[in-house]
């Protein structure tokens, strides 16, 4: 009963915290709510008209939603890059960053689930997928694996920070024996979610662009670059807007992770390009379409030729210690890297998988306004959830939020 009372008090206190703040904070939250409402309106149009409201067709049957889903799984997985040094390698530097990283993972996972639901033709019959009352095609379908790993990871990433914050809220030390095993599981689990998501595409013999052994490892490398890059940017914002103390040392360590991952990612990109273009086969057509266009169809060219230079430039700059240690340059590089990988692992991965089609037909894909509206709405929802989580966590960590036993 005691724990329940504390929990109720925590909920009340955090509600209090998240509804109070500076003018900028209120503006930010109001803006997010507005964008979310626009997204919901767009989604209502999609529900009414069906998925024909999107740019997808029988030829390109997955688009912006699945692209964002794929990318965000990577962002969620990247939280592990902070968890591992803190809890497993006992590097104390990361302790403050880790709560933020895990909050980011939770927000990213909820966005992933939202993108998948937005992509469904029949969201009202999604209960068909619930084991027990529906039919869960496990282990044959990789999608069921993905459902398991994503929800499991969501659970881990909610429970560990919650446990720690819940203890700190009561002015108690969190027991290592409780959360360290969870943290270790989450390290392996994070690799699992991204690998399983890659297998979702990698296992399709029908799509040679995806049916490629490097897809999974490259997912991991790009995720461990883009995810921590986003964390650096978020930490920078938090540092300048709150009293939460994040040392330069922490940010520089994360920057090191970003750099190494981005370098590995680039090596893999070279390997992929070599395979596709040195001795091109029928199976290289998708890559040709992506990088050079096929038969005059070249909708993806501006995207990929934005992504590749950004990616290379950011990686090269980060490689030099002098530049990386300059925080302004670092933030700029992280931003470039994030955008580059979002294009490459989203749009640049999903759409060319369908082009050319099984019989060589090239039908291009462009998202519609409704689709873009829903997508931005879901991103706003993610930012909204993250802001709430981060504000509460920071409040507790700074000692502003504490449990007051009324009897005592």
């Amino acid at each position, binding site marked *: 009963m005691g724990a329940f009372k504390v929990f109720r008090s925590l909920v009340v206190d955090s509600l209090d915290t998240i509804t109070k703040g500076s003018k900028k904070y209120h503006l930010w939250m109001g803006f997010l709510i507005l964008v979310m409402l626009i997204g919901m309106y767009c989604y209502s149009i999609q529900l009414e008209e069906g998925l024909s409201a999107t740019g997808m067709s029988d030829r390109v049957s997955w688009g912006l939603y699945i692209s964002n889903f794929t990318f965000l799984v990577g962002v969620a997985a990247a939280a592990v890059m902070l968890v591992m040094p803190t809890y497993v390698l006992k590097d104390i530097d990361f302790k403050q960053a880790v709560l933020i990283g895990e909050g980011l993972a939770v927000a990213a996972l909820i966005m992933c689930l939202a993108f998948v639901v937005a992509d469904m033709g029949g969201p009202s019959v999604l209960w068909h997928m619930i*084991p027990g*009352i529906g039919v869960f095609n496990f282990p*044959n379908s990789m999608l069921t694996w993905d459902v398991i790993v994503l929800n499991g990871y969501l659970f881990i990433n909610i429970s560990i920070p919650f446990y720690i914050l819940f203890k700190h809220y009561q002015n108690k030390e969190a027991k290592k024996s409780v959360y360290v095993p969870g943290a270790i599981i989450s390290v392996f689990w994070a690799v699992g979610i991204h690998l399983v998501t890659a297998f979702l595409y990698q296992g*399709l013999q029908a799509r040679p662009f995806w049916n490629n052994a490097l897809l999974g490892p490259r997912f991991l490398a790009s995720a461990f670059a883009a995810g921590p890059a986003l964390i650096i940017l978020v930490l920078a914002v938090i540092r300048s807007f709150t009293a939460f103390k994040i040392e330069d040392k922490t940010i520089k360590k994360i920057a090191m992770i970003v750099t190494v991952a981005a370098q590995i990612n680039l090596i893999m990109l070279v390997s992929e390009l070599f395979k596709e273009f040195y001795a091109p086969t029928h199976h290289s057509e998708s890559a040709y379409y992506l990088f050079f266009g096929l038969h005059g169809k070249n909708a993806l060219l501006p995207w990929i030729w934005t992504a590749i230079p950004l990616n290379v430039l950011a990686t090269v700059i980060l490689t030099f210690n002098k530049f990386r240690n300059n925080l302004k340059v670092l933030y700029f590089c992280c931003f470039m890297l994030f955008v580059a990988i979002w294009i490459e692992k989203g749009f640049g991965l999903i759409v060319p998988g369908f082009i050319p089609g099984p019989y060589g037909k090239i039908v291009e894909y462009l998202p519609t306004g409704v689709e873009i509206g829903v997508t931005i709405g879901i991103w706003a929802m993610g930012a909204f959830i993250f802001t709430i989580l981060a504000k509460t966590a920071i409040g507790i960590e700074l000692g502003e939020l504490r449990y007051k036993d009324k009897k005592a």
Partner: protein
Amino acid sequence: MSDNKKWFSLDLGLNNKKESSGSCGCGKSEGSCNSSPKEEELSADEFYEAAINASIGEERHRDGFEQVFDVKMDRRSAFKKLTASLLIGAGAVTTSCSVTTGSDTKEKAQIGWEEQFKGNYKLMTDEEKQGTINRLMRSYELRTDKKINMTAENAAEDVLFGYAFNISKCQGYMNCVSACVEENNQDRNSEMQYIRIHEMKDGEGFKFDKADDNYYHEVPAEGHFYMGTQCFHCDNPPCVEVCPVQATWKEEDGLVVIDYDWCVGCRYCMAACPYDGRRFNWSKPEVPENEVNKNQHYLGNRMRKKGVMEKCTFCVQRTRKGKNPACVEACPTGARIFGNLLDPNSTIRWVLENKKVFRLKEDLGTEPKFWYFMD
């Protein structure tokens, strides 16, 4: 018998106990190896188990959830309980609010509830199948005052459907395409077509990427030849493997079918199909009332809704009654041949034995039951 399996799979020595249930003269295995247990020398317990298997089918074994979490109550009863409780609730709501509504409205609501919360057709018993088609027929009658005839005919024994396409004969008239659209009640707005006829240039061979599958000129065009593609009803269908809810599966007679009411619309099967055989209802499908084909099958040409997959079923509503699919019947050139692969006297068997046949993308190991040949 495992070497009877025609698609490529690694032999790890784990499949020894598997027995193939039926194989035809041409060396094909039906692929549904563990679905027909031998019932002769069984004890009472085993017989009970076998009876359950016979009614529910191999899915009881295949369902990963049961294996992994070892649930005592089987899904069927769990599902029934859930449905029953929902129905009680629904019934209570409808009766309590029904002072002003007519009995038709009440019945419609009742059918709506039962249809929303029914199970997967693949796992239904014959009575449940009958129940759902009765509801669907009644619902159509309530909505339009017209009767339709829907069946839930199961696969016949010793039947495995196959298809052959004569490239020399096809002239690209596309009578098959329009017959298919009319027979299968496909959406007229989006002009959905299961069959694609590819027009290719003579002397260039099969250059699919240069072929035109959307032509509007007079055929046969000078210097061109034609070939058709549709769902090939693979013996090892990748689309079936990837479906997260088992809304699509291979029937005993080899047809790859979809339960439109169970499909969640994730389109994973569409990404997995190497033959462009699947179609999605991007918006609400519409067929003018006077053009609706009223002889329907649950797995075939019954009306679809928006947000679900559909595909060629080899006209299950016709072929399970011994007729040819609409495309075969409509073809004026005789390029299309359909029949039972297990019947040694069928035309399809004659074609397979006497013509040089080939299939598309054999390297993918999907084992299509759709062959091409030339005169």
